[in-house]
């Protein structure tokens, strides 16, 4: 530690601290433009100069390290003079177009001018004429306003690892711009916008819409992916104008956002939002009052229940809705309708993986928080396109890896951004992760690299595992995975030798059906190497949706009451019955898949869908159509008239994230507050409110004054939420388990012991997950793209401009064989369905595979993916055939309803064709 003196005050700072650090520690304000909390010192603006005793020159405090006994003066006449000169110069060449500048009112230059009380000064105002780039869809650049602090280019490089912007040119004409001065074409994270102290980089959506001083910031949680970034929605009236990332003690995103979080909010104001309840009358959906809609639902539900029993009713909860809404939804199903037929999309991806964790450790949740990655010295990113799927989590991985604090091992069939930074990238065949993980585990045991102490004290089933792994040496599975044995061995050794290794895995995307086995195999690996139950070591499955974890936590699961309490457990059920004053069904209900099958088979008569679009998001679209067509009553509660809603008997208009209060639980168990920023359009109502009104209409009084009242009931109901009281969430999130109001929450699980006692390893046999055939030789790899989250963001204008439609990736070798080139349209045919998509020839996907994004209504990947028997057919093989798409041009003018209708028609047509083609598969 060095002791230094700043303006007469002593302070001790660590060796290597800058003068600025020391001053800040004393809360002495030194103005700067280029300094940024998350960036390396740069020293370009020279605003932060100070005097140091015994030297002649002025020092830029942000870059000069302190020496012991240094005496620093931050506010002398010389210092003030120098700062004023910097300001004067900046101001001289800065266009004074504050009235049209989006940053006006938040501009650091403006603030400094006011602070220093300076006019133009000696040099007047000098016009400059640099480039203004209007060409990129989301981010606009005005070089004239740029003060070249370099924050944008540095954040783009140091945080974002993109390097889209950099200094260019020399001397006064120097600018920051993309290479070759082309329009920006990047991740559009907008970190540069937020880092820009002036109005040089700004959101195109925001510009010229509202002055910042009229905007009210509302601190809330991002509604898109599972990372749960804290946002500030800047609103005026009922309109969101601008979004900023929040960087405070309670946020976990350091103020960073992805393009969806920053620009995706436009969906809220989409003109297609539904604003009044509708009932199908004579085949058409017509607007009605809420009373009429409730009456209709009540009557039909009662009628069906009387005719077919409670279990003929089912409900699909929503991984997008709040905890409170999902809690009330499952309560409504169980208490008001009397059935356990309640489930969610988690069933198709996330939940199976969580099951593996539950079986091994006793808790269905990631073991460590995302912030805990800062303690890892090895990160193994498995089957995860983390920088696109869970962008800000990806930044945490990049930071750890690029700073040299952690090694990165990646396993991914696709070449994605993260694989570029990996020390080892294993490009295994899709669907063979289990074999790959088994091979790594076999190396660990074979070469004696296991953590024997940990194995002895905290692990069970080791011998059985060891036996089973004999079949999975890297050499033996090389043919299956396609990864050279030596590479697997190296990776396994690195993993075993790491002090703290964390596995990150994305469920739902690339491994939709094999989630449980994959996670179980990964669990084996971390258990034998002792990489769990410790800070910096564990496993974090990532999710695409914002509240998958919360939806499961709340009991929107057919077999679990809230808090993963089995419905079949009498004691538990009795406790709930006491709380809720009803008799609960003791039979586990139908899961999401079961409900679709049931409806198709005619045993399930009524389906209540809240904030979900099964026709788009569930596998086997054809089957879903059958199911929906076959229902007596389909209630859809949503923001938009979705494909599913096209089949509905009753449609209820719901509010969306920024329009309501509640909580989300992100992918690392962090419960965070969602705050109402604006009113919902028209007569749309909050989902939780609709449920309480409907329950009340059906005779079960639900009286909650607010969503927070619901949260209070949740804290009474779920033990590990017990301490998460609404008032604690205003400025910070809390990781569950949080058993008491004075408990800080738990970032790292299983520190002393597993709830299951010992961590259970188990043999995970690799199952061939699908078979290629002559007719279907290409492997389908569904996935997400950076610019979208589900289908919601396709309703955001700006994001749609960046990524307007699905583009499938075909490997150059395959393209050459099929005589395809980028821009061609192809028809993909699987054993069960057909879809058409435009392609791009790219080596990002492996030879023999075709990557198709899942977000777009026009291209239904789920039409190709089979539903049953899911586990036996985890991967889907398709045929590719080139087709002409001359009508593409016309689609732009199509209205939303007719487009949906056509989509549905196409699905039905597809089914018909498939039926005709049905024959023995070769």
């Amino acid at each position: 530690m060095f002791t230094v003196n700043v303006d007469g005050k002593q302070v001790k700072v660590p060796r290597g601290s800058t003068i600025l650090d020391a001053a800040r520690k004393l809360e002495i304000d030194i103005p700067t433009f280029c300094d940024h909390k998350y960036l390396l010192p740069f020293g370009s603006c020279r605003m932060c100069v100070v005097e140091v005793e015994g030297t002649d020159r002025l020092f830029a405090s942000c870059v000069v390290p302190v020496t012991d006994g240094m005496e620093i003066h931050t506010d002398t006449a010389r210092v003030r003079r120098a700062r004023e000169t910097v300001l004067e110069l900046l101001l001289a060449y800065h266009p004074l177009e504050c009235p049209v500048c989006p940053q006006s009112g938040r501009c650091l230059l403006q603030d400094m001018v006011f602070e220093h009380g300076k006019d133009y000064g000696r040099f007047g105002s000098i016009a400059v004429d640099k480039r203004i780039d209007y060409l990129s869809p989301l981010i606009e650049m005005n070089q004239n306003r740029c003060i070249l602090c370099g924050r944008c280019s540095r954040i783009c490089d140091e945080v974002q690892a993109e390097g889209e912007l950099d200094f260019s040119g020399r001397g006064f004409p120097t600018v920051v711009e993309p290479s070759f001065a082309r329009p920006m074409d990047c991740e559009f994270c907008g970190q540069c916008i937020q880092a820009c102290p002036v109005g040089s980089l700004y959101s195109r959506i925001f510009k010229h819409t509202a002055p910042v001083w009229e905007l009210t910031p509302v601190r809330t949680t991002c509604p898109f992916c599972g990372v749960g970034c804290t946002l500030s929605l800047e609103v005026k009236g009922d309109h969101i104008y601008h979004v900023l990332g929040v960087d405070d003690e309670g946020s976990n995103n350091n103020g960073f956002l992805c393009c969806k979080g920053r620009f995706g909010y436009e969906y809220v104001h989409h003109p297609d939002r539904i604003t009044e309840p509708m009932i199908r009358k004579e085949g058409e959906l017509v607007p009605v009052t809420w009373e009429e809609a409730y009456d209709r639902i009540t009557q039909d539900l009662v009628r069906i229940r009387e005719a077919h029993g409670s279990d003929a009713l089912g409900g699909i909860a929503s991984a997008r809705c709040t905890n409170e809404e999902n809690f009330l939804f499952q309560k409504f199903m169980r208490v008001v309708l009397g059935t356990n037929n309640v489930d969610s999309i988690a069933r198709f991806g996330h939940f199976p993986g969580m099951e593996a964790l539950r079986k091994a450790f006793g808790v269905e949740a990631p073991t460590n928080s995302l912030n805990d990655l800062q303690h890892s010295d090895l990160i193994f990113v498995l089957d995860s396109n983390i920088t696109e799927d869970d962008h800000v989590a990806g930044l945490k991985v990049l930071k750890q890896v690029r700073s040299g604090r952690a090694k990165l091992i990646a396993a991914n069939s696709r070449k994605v951004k993260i694989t570029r930074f990996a020390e080892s990238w294993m490009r295994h065949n899709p669907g063979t992760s289990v074999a790959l993980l088994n091979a790594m585990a076999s190396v660990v045991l074979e070469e004696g690299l296991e953590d024997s102490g940990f194995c002895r004290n905290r692990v069970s089933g080791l011998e059985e595992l060891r036996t089973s792994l004999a079949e999975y040496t890297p050499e033996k599975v090389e043919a299956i995975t396609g990864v050279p044995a030596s590479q697997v061995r190296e990776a396994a050794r690195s993993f075993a030798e790491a002090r703290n290794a964390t596995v990150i895995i994305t469920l739902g995307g690339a491994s939709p059906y094999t989630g449980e086995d994959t996670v179980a195999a990964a669990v084996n690996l971390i258990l034998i190497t002792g990489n769990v139950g410790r800070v910096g070591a564990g496993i974090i499955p990532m999710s695409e949706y914002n509240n998958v974890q919360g939806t499961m936590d709340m009991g929107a699961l057919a077999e679990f009451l809230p808090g993963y309490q089995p419905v079949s457990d009498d004691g538990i059920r009795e406790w709930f019955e006491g709380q809720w004053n009803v008799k609960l069904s003791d039979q586990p209900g139908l899961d999401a898949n079961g409900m679709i099958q049931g409806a198709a088979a005619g045993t399930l008569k009524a389906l209540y869908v809240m904030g979900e679009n099964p026709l788009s998001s569930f596998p086997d679209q054809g089957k879903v159509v059958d199911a929906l067509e076959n229902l007596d009553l389909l209630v859809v509660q949503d923001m938009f008239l979705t494909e599913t809603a096209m089949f509905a008997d009753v449609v209820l208009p719901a509010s969306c994230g920024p329009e309501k209060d509640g909580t989300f639980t992100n992918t690392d168990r962090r419960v965070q507050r969602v705050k109402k920023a604006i009113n919902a359009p028209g007569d749309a109502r909050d989902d939780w409110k609709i449920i309480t009104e409907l329950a009340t209409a059906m005779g079960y009084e639900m009286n909650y004054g607010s969503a927070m009242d619901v949260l209070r009931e949740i804290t009474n109901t779920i033990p590990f939420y017990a301490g998460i009281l609404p008032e604690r969430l205003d400025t910070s999130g809390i990781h569950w388990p949080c058993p008491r109001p004075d408990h800080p929450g738990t970032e790292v699980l299983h520190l002393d012991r597993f709830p299951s006692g010992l961590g259970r390893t188990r043999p995970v046999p690799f199952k061939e997950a699908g078979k290629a055939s002559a007719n279907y030789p290409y492997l389908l790899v569904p996935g997400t793209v950076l610019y979208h989250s589900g289908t919601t963001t396709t309703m955001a204008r700006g994001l749609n401009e960046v990524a307007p439609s699905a583009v499938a990736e075909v490997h150059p070798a395959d393209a050459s064989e099929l005589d395809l080139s980028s821009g061609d349209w192809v028809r993909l045919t699987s054993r069960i369905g057909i879809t058409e998509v435009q392609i791009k020839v790219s080596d990002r996907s492996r030879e023999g595979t075709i990557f198709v994004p899942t977000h777009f209504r026009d291209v239904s990947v789920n039409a190709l993916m089979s539903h049953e028997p899911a586990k036996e057919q985890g991967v889907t093989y398709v045929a590719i055939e080139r087709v002409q798409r001359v009508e593409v041009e016309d689609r732009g003018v199509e209205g939303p309803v007719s487009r949906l209708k056509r989509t549905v028609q196409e699905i039905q047509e597809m089914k018909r064709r498939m039926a005709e083609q049905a024959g023995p598969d070769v």
Partner: protein
Amino acid sequence: MGYESDKLIVIGMGTCGLASGARGVLSEVEQQMDKLSIEVPILKTGCIGMCYQEVLVDIALPGRARVTYAKVEPEMIQSIINNHVVKGKPVTDYAIGQITTNGEKIYKGIPTYQELDFFKKQNRIVLRRCGFIDPDKIEDYLETDGYRAAEKALGTMSPTIVREVVKKSGLRGRGGGGFPTGLKWEFCSNAAGDPKYLICNADEGDPGAFMDRSVLEGDPHAVLEGMIIAAYAIGARYGYIYCRAEYPLAIERLIRAIEQAEERNFLGENIFGSDFSFHLKVKEGAGAFVCGEETALMASIEGKRGMPRSRPPFPAHRGLWNQPSNINNVETFASVAPIILNGADSYAGIGTESTKGTKVFALTGKINNTGLIEVPAGTQLKEIVYDIGGGIVGGGKFKAAQLGGPSGGCLPAEIIETPIDYDSLIEAGAMMGSGGVVVMDERTCMVDVARFFLEFTTAESCGKCVPCRMGTRTMLGILERISAGLGAMEDIKNLEELAQEIKNTSLCGLGQSAPNPVLSTLRYFRREYESHIKEKRCPAVVCKTIISSPCQHVCPIETDVPAYVTLIGQGKFSEALELIRITNPLPAVCGRVCHHPCESKCRRGDLDESISIRTLKRVAADFAAKEEATGKYKINVSKISGTGKKVAIVGGGPAGLTAAHFLAQSDFSPVIFEAQRVAGGMLILGIPEYRLPRETLQHEIRAIESMGATFHLNTQVGKAISFDQIRMDHEAVFIATGAHVDLKMGIPGEDAEGVYESLSFLRRVNLGEEVPLGKNVAVVGGGNTAIDAARVARRMGAEVTILYRRTRREMPADEMEIEEAINEGVDLQTLVAPVQIMISGGRMAKVQCIKMELGEPDSSGRRRPEPIEGSEFEVEFDNLIVAVSGQPDLSFLEEGHGLSISKWNSIDVHPYTQMTNVEGVFAGGDVVTGPWMVIDAIAAGKRAAAHMELFLNGEEVVPQYGVTKPNIDPVEAIGLTEEDMHLTRPGMPTMEVEKRLRDFAEVELGYTKEMAMKEARRCLRCDTEE
């Protein structure tokens, strides 16, 4: 004959040699040898330093001194080969020097190198091999002690000892910073980390600096050897030479040198049989000046944008790839081997207390001997400029030298005795920098120099930090404003403040030193800035926006020369005259007797000879007068109404006449009081008629009269009318009484009979008085009056001798006049001064003279005449005319006139408004300046009229400065044809010498119409250039 290995032909093939045509010379040498069937080895060397003498060819014959031929053209080769190589007889006409290295026999009639001014004061350590070895041959290097120092260091010295020796030698970084080299090595050596890197900074980017290039091209192994020793001293395993890509030859030679050194295991693993390994690579820079800054340089090697970062951490701790690194420049490394080989003391013994050893300088600019020199630190700038550099091109005057490139500063002539070492230079506001010396003469505008360097640094700033990027740009903007005549005095203050702030706050050396050229020029040449700002004048006639064209700008009355010259070129003589008359009421006079400063600045003169601007003016006036005589043309005089206020003009010389003209033009009533019976003042009393015919003058005076000026001749103020009376009768007064009183030499016997004073002599002759003159007449002085007196005396039948104390080169008189005087038989005796006039019989008999010699140059470069003790001698003369100077006669002023009078008895006035300290009283011409030029008197009259007009109109009399502008819409340039470019200036047709001495008829006859039109077409019309 066949292969003659004992002979050697050396050809300078550095960049300077190649640029001067070395390749052509080489191929001619080869051809000539082919022709003679001989084969002599040819050595292709780097630059020997005499870039101004390239192409250089040396011939060395066995046992004989090596002879250097300079400025060799292929045509000269045959003779050199035939005579020298074959017959052993050097061609002394072409040879400039010879050099012996091993006691070879020298030739007669060729100076040795040691005798050459260029080499006399040099001490070549870094450059010891440049020009003497073949840089592509490691054998040549080895033969000249090459790699012996490295062998010694690695074989017999520990790294610590190597560092100690270098520390003790006092070697300081030659890149400009001057940091002690040994200490720098020690820092890096002590820093923790492996590997360590050694970097050679060969990104020489200063305008005017090329010493690194020459060393790399001429002696690349010296740099390698220095680096090997440094690497060993530091413990660096890897090295880079960062060389700018603009030095392709240097890079080529470096790469070859590295290959050769690797082959012999001087580089690579376990070099020189030790356990030390050192690998070296050349990295090409991409042309950014800032990459000479060490942190930017390292970023560039790393493949990043070349932008500096803040230090600390210093490269010694965190440098290339974040490892401990050491950077020195080429010259520093090249200095290392001799230190190791000859010991620290050998080096420390050279130079000054603070700066040891030698320093290489690149001499460029307006200096005769451009090239590379190496002198002991502490050598004076004077020695570099005059002794080594051979003085200023074209005998011009040394004005300043820019040292240290864009980061350095200008040293003015006044401090030419500054010793060149680190500390003295910093004190003087410059810096050693890399060693570029750009020499400037009087045609260099210091504001423009500052602007040039600022333009450079502004463009080369990396753009990272605000003070450098925006501050230098702002300074440049201010300088541009000043150069354009739009500056304000406040700008100087802003420049100084901003410069200081930029120096204080910039991130790297580039910004911290960028304001230096401005600060140093402001320090030494502030007056020049003020001139641009206050008077809209560029004294060096450079700043385009202010000057319009140089001829117009230097003309005291801003005659629109390019326009009238063009009109003459088009044959429009009377239109040309009208244009001239806008600014000048005496065109025919000026066309004959003006000293034409315009011609001295004429740009055409930079190409061949200046336009004969004066004669063209005369031609316009004379032809118009001819046409006037025939009634074809009428001079345009707007006669005044006569109702204007009355203004008195005391004295009818050029100043008074001009003032009268312009006052009349502005509707005032000027009244001229002239003591003599004719008007014209010095034009008629001083200038002999053979130069200015009476009628020519009278014609122009009549035009002024016809405008309404009233002349009272024979009216001596103070006698015929009192000055007070004049003041009372007129609303304003302009005193233009001239300077008609002769000054004396102040030697014994000056009052003797037979001794005349030149002004009164001329006046009396011009007024037709009888002036007795003997056979032998001496004239003392070197000015125009002396020449006039001499030529008049010749016409009066005397044998005339001019005595002048300096040499003919220093004579202030017009060169043409001197020439004509000699033609007319005047004997010119220079370096002679009279010390006493011997009297015999009450009359002068002899003149005792003393011989003079020229001493050391003063700060202006002009050498002072000093008498040679004991060289007195006596000469007999009948008459002596003393033409030293004159002064005004102010006896006409009454007691209590209140005017401020100078110690030279002249009237003090505001230099621009011409108003005296007494309201309403103006003065101008010789009465203010002492004896001076006609055109300046005219200018004074013109300025006085303009400001008197302000006064008469009741306005405040403040100077009305403006930038020089064309008087009418620019006359469209004719456009120069190829033929025009080849035209030469015609000589002045003159009356035959024999005829001249008969009477006082005009000697110069002027041009014919055709000659004039042709001559006018040579004008480059620089007024139209952007």
